[in-house]
């Protein structure tokens, strides 16, 4: 029954709309507004449930090819998760270590991780690109990016 992917998704969406509706009903109502803050969210929540139900009962039109596309080889999945973690590290460190250093580390190691082997080119790009961006932002545009531990 839950085999086709669209049915699983439809159930997830229904759960989401119930949560959203629950929050909508928590919203305060106001005496002197005609259309309340919660009116449209309620309509959206109900609308999403109806659409999800239609999706649930619609026939499975996916071809085999479509399904195969969704199967991600383990190796690729590992790559995506790795990149996601590197992005998290980038965000976490951006204001702590500063734009230049973090961007250098990110570009260099992310490219390396994704299988780029020309280390020399990688090193040059990962130093130059952030440097050019940083100077363009701070000097030409007057937008200060976090300088962090590099003292300029």
């Amino acid at each position, binding site marked *: 029954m839950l085999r086709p*992917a*669209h049915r699983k998704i439809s159930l997830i*969406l229904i759960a989401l709309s119930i949560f*959203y509706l629950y*929050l909508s009903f928590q919203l305060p109502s*106001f005496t002197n*507004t*005609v*259309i*309340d*803050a*919660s009116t*449209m*969210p309620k309509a*959206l929540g109900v609308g*999403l449930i109806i*659409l*999800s139900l*239609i*999706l649930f009962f*619609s026939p499975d*039109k*996916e071809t085999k090819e*479509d399904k195969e596309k*969704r199967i*991600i*080889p383990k190796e*690729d999945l590992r*790559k*995506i998760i790795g*990149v*996601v973690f590197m*992005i*998290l590290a*980038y*965000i*976490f460190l*951006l*204001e702590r270590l500063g*734009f230049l250093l973090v*961007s250098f580390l*990110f*570009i260099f190691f*992310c*490219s*390396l*991780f*994704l*299988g*780029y082997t*020309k280390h020399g080119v990688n090193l040059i*790009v*990962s130093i130059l*690109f*952030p440097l050019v*961006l940083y100077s363009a932002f701070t000097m030409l*545009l*007057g*937008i200060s*990016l976090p300088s962090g531990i590099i003292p300029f």
Partner: protein
Amino acid sequence: MGSLEGILSGVQLAFSIEGILFVFLGVLAGTLIGMMPGLGPISAIAIMIPLTYNMDPTVALVLMAGVYYGAVFGGSTSSILLNAPGISGTVATSFDGYPMAQRGEAGKALAVAAISSFVGGTVSVVLLMLFAPALSSVAVVFGPPEYFALMVLGLTAISSLSDGSTVKALISAVLGIMAVTIGIDSQTGTTRFTFNNPNLLEGIDFLVVALGLFALSEVCALIINRSQTSKDRKSLGSLKLSKSELKDMSGPVGRQSILGFILGVLPGAGATIASFIGYITEKKLAKKPKEFGKGAVRGVAAPETANNAATSGAFVPLLSLGIPGSGTTAVLLGALLVLDIQPGPLLMGEQPQLFWGVIVSMYVGNLFLLILNLPLIPYIAKILAIPRPLLISLVIMFSMIGVYSISFNTFDLYLLLIFGIIGYLMRLFKFPPAPFILAFILGGMMEESFRQAMTMSNNDLSVFINKPIALGMLIAAFLSFVVPIWQGYYRKKKHAA
């Protein structure tokens, strides 16, 4: 005639050495700033303000106008090459621009964008010159009922923005409106769905959603999809458009120059809505609508013409009424006040040289943009020849700095990542992201204008029927939603019979 003298003095100013120099600098800075995701026309103008303090007011306005339309002109580059729309006006450009680039026709896509932008920009300046005074009254006609109708009309595009399941497209759109309800509700001041997080009070920024759903999810796809090797590098930068392609784009460019301009005149509508409506109307008019979304030349030409035409249109309410119709023109208005220019109904009469000088300089500016951009295209297009792993790292960093530079808040970066993952999942399960972003842009305005209209009319729905413009657009919206469904049903029946 006073206005003829005014135009002449404007021409004189626009063609003075100073005028030409600053138009050039303005469009150069604008187009470069516009190419960076995150830095749109608003930041471009804000950045220029301090530079203009001691300038002659007209020259300063010429410079800032150049920065403005230059940024819109340059905004298409990252949409086409990296699927990373930097401003909302270029989201629609990525629908067909990116597939073209994927096909190895990056140079061609950029050339189409540049030419359409040029024509859209130039034609609309002609319209601006001829009709600015007359159109100023049109700009004032639109109130909440009309805006509501316009937003609804824009949203009917959802059905035409997906080539797969209509249900999935609608779900995607509902999710988009849900995302935009997060934040302080403008009509009551209460907070909605913020979970007491101050970072969510002002809602989610458009750029976070656009770069997440489009650029980051594309990055995920690039990581996995190794089968595609680097494209034919020679063809990447080729600008050559065949005669049939030029002919193909002439229709959309002509129509959207006018439609985009009119939509640009309306305060609050602006380049974004113009580009979407431009895209949709051309898809409806096309003989082969199926090609849209897969790299159609018309699909790039239409939104690019429309958004640049709309930019000139935005100068109508600004210069002839002193009414800023968008965030960007509001910042521009602020900058003008500092220079002792008071745009308003009297500006044209009191300072004709300034009024016409700026308008005439826009012709020069658009020409500069074309001359600047075309020769650069082969080099810019080569960005795609950067080895895949390095390109991925750079796009990720570029997107993050784009988002960071608008709010300087790392919270937005986490959101960006979340939208990237959502975008990738949507891709896997074939939920189109375009309706999501369209609904995200239009949904908020639709709710706001509906509630404004209802409050103003004391809860009387007839406001939407009594106003002919609103009624007309609602009927058009209804037809454009129902007719395709009915046609589809009818066709099926025929097949079955």
